[in-house]
């Protein structure tokens, strides 16, 4: 049995941030707990916050399991995380502006040219363009894991359209509704300002040509998308329209939305669709989700797209290894948050090491997400490992490997009472005129005993995440 950092219990003692929860959980009768759990589920269903999965049979409106036991950070812990996250968000954006501009970091030999320019996520269509305020990634979701009292590692960066922020907000709403007393007893920083902060961030990057209050919209692939609830929730909370591709058209160098009063100009598009689907004239010609002509409007300064097309080159898992280098190169600072040591399977000597140690490593696809196409060595059978080794040898450049981290645990409600379960954290950093971060994020928890996979598509749940006030 490996030793994991337990966020609540340090030996027998309760760690300070969780002191306010000890009596709450000790005095909660099992019946009340079950009742509250049922109530929470009913609330989630009622407001419609489901994770829609079509085409797999079963209930298309699936709930992500919600665990009522909060995950807590002290003000001090959070301050450090916040500095580290903002530092990283700044460096990632500087990198994007650079590689679509002069490419200084490549010329300086700090990152291989091929990794940048031959990357599938590098969009040649936007080279030479600097978006308003030099921001490519306006919402940076940074996945963090904790392995000790002061040890945090960045697992990956999400520079395109990190999802899950609606859970951060709804988890808090539901906790406040069900357990008002613990919010009175603990001084917890609010997260409810996020939608307004997001709207301000997006408005602050409106194109120069925009006069007056910018019109912001959210572009969704549509109501069959699994994250549709989140798109509609955010639009509602921000007070902006939720549009689909066919609701927009391009004319005269601007983007317009079709309204009952006639065309209305759109200045900022917060898109929740991939680059490839944005504009059939520029990317995939068969895309029905996008807006023909959008990229021409974008490049000629008629509209801002957030995140900017091409932002994905910064969150590629192979580029990830160079983020500490980016921080040093652009900011002249040492990284506050550490990377997980990573082996690039594209490099022959590192591949050899990975193949020799598959049973102890986690291997991930460079472009994958959602926990699919990965190997968790210590949990895999011999056959699975052998099969994966085969895949690795065929296309090593598609994979990276990392040691299995001792993810911290947080108490979680289970059948028998409470038990430690592994957690990670995704805070959402907003980059516009300023760089801002609400105190909190989405804590994902692996509900299966011993599991390290927190993805909702593979049995993960979510928790409310608290940052205590000073």
């Amino acid at each position: 049995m490996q030793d994991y950092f337990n966020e609540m219990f340090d030996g027998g003692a309760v760690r300070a941030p969780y002191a306010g929860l000890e009596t709450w959980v000790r005095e909660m009768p099992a019946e009340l707990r079950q009742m509250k759990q049922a109530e929470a589920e009913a609330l989630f269903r009622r407001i419609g916050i489901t994770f829609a999965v079509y085409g797999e049979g079963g209930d298309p409106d699936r709930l992500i399991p919600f665990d009522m036991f909060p995950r807590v950070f002290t003000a001090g812990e959070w301050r450090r995380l916040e500095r580290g996250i903002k530092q990283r968000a700044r460096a990632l954006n500087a990198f994007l502006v650079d590689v679509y501009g002069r490419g200084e970091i490549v010329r300086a030999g700090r990152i291989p040219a091929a990794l940048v320019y031959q990357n599938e996520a590098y969009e040649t269509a936007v080279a030479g363009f600097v978006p308003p305020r030099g921001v490519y990634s306006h919402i940076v979701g940074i996945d963090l894991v904790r392995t000790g009292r002061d040890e945090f590692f960045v697992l990956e960066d999400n520079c395109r359209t990190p999802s899950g922020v609606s859970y951060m907000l709804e988890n808090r709403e539901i906790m406040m509704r069900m357990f008002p007393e613990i919010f009175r007893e603990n001084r917890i920083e609010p997260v409810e300002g996020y939608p307004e902060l997001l709207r301000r961030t997006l408005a602050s990057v409106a194109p120069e040509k925009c006069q007056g209050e910018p019109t912001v919209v959210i572009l969704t692939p549509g109501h069959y998308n699994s994250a549709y609830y989140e798109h509609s929730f955010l639009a509602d909370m921000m007070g902006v329209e939720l549009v689909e591709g066919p609701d927009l058209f391009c004319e005269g160098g601007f983007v317009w939305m079709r309204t009952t009063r006639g065309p209305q100009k759109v200045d900022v598009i917060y898109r929740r669709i991939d680059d490839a689907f944005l504009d059939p004239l520029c990317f995939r010609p068969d895309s029905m989700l996008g807006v023909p002509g959008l990229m021409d409007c974008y490049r000629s300064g008629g509209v801002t797209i957030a995140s900017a097309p091409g932002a994905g080159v910064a969150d590629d898992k192979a580029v990830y290894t160079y983020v500490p280098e980016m921080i040093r190169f652009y900011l002249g600072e040492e990284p506050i948050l550490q990377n997980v040591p990573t082996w690039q399977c594209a490099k022959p000597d590192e591949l050899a090491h990975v193949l020799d140690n598959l049973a102890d490593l986690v291997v991930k696809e460079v472009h994958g997400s959602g926990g699919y196409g990965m190997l968790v060595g210590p949990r895999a059978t011999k056959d699975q490992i052998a099969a994966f080794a085969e895949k690795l040898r065929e296309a090593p450049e598609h994979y990276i490997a990392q040691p299995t981290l001792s993810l911290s645990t947080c108490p979680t409600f289970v059948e028998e009472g409470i038990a430690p379960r592994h957690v990670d954290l995704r805070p959402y950093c907003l980059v516009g005129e300023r760089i801002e971060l609400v105190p909190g994020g989405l804590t994902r928890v692996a509900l299966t005993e011993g599991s390290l996979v927190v993805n909702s598509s593979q049995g993960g749940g979510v928790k409310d995440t608290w940052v205590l006030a000073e």
Partner: protein
Amino acid sequence: MLSRTADNLFWIGRYVERAEMMARLLAVGGRIALLPGVHGYRNEWESLLQASGTAAGFPRKYGEPVQRNIESYLFFDRDNPSSVVSCLEAARENARIVRTALTTQVWDAINGAFQELRQLERTPRSELELARLTDWTMRQSALFRGAIDATQLRNDGYDFLNLGFHLERADNTARLMDVKYFVLLPKADYVGTGLDLYQWQTLLRAISAHRAFHWAYGGEITAAKVAHFLILNRSCPRSLIASVAGAAHHLDHVARAYGATTRAQDLVRAMLGELAELRVEDVFEEGMHEFLTRFIGAVGILSARIHDAYLSGEAR
């Protein structure tokens, strides 16, 4: 508001009203079937299929128009785009798309109906009386409309939702009357006979208006009185004039809010003007079927103009 959102709202109204129409048609059928008919039991169910406007898809799948099959087809069948299940599912999906344009109460009403519908589908058919199905449907639509009236903001979204209701209702009442007059009565000879009377009564029941009718007119049921009630009486909520007046009201509201009128307002005013001047004798002179056909056509044009002016997003 986004044209697509307005379109979704408009269709929520239409689908819920259409589901109710299907339930009412089934109720009419159920009652007419109880009458020892002059021309047999089957033909009446067939007339119902005609009235539902979905007759074409039936024989391919079911063959004989017997009650049980027609119930399946008009209530449960997803292959029939106008069945109660299809309509309520379509209404709910439209509502999910514009979830944030609806109040929690309105969403609960339509989402609740959708969840209950799934339970109904799992219930053995032997336990489902026709009356239970039709009552359930009408209760759901009443709940839904009540939630709209009590909680929705009176903005343009409210207008588009109600335009859907009113247009669909105008269309439905006209179709119901047309079934009675043109389809159910096989020959002009039957006019004024006991069968004729029974059918008028059934029709009034189907639109839940037989008591209102007696209260408003008293005495014997005649074709002229029923025609007046269903076409020209503004106090009957399902009359043609009340539906058109409702549509006119909401279109006027939109025109005021947007500071511009369109061809939709022009047409609805003309329709309302004609109905206001009309006498029941004029209807009979023109021929009931001819009049209704013309009216249904006008409703179709009005719907198209609303689409062009507001819902298509093509207007400049």
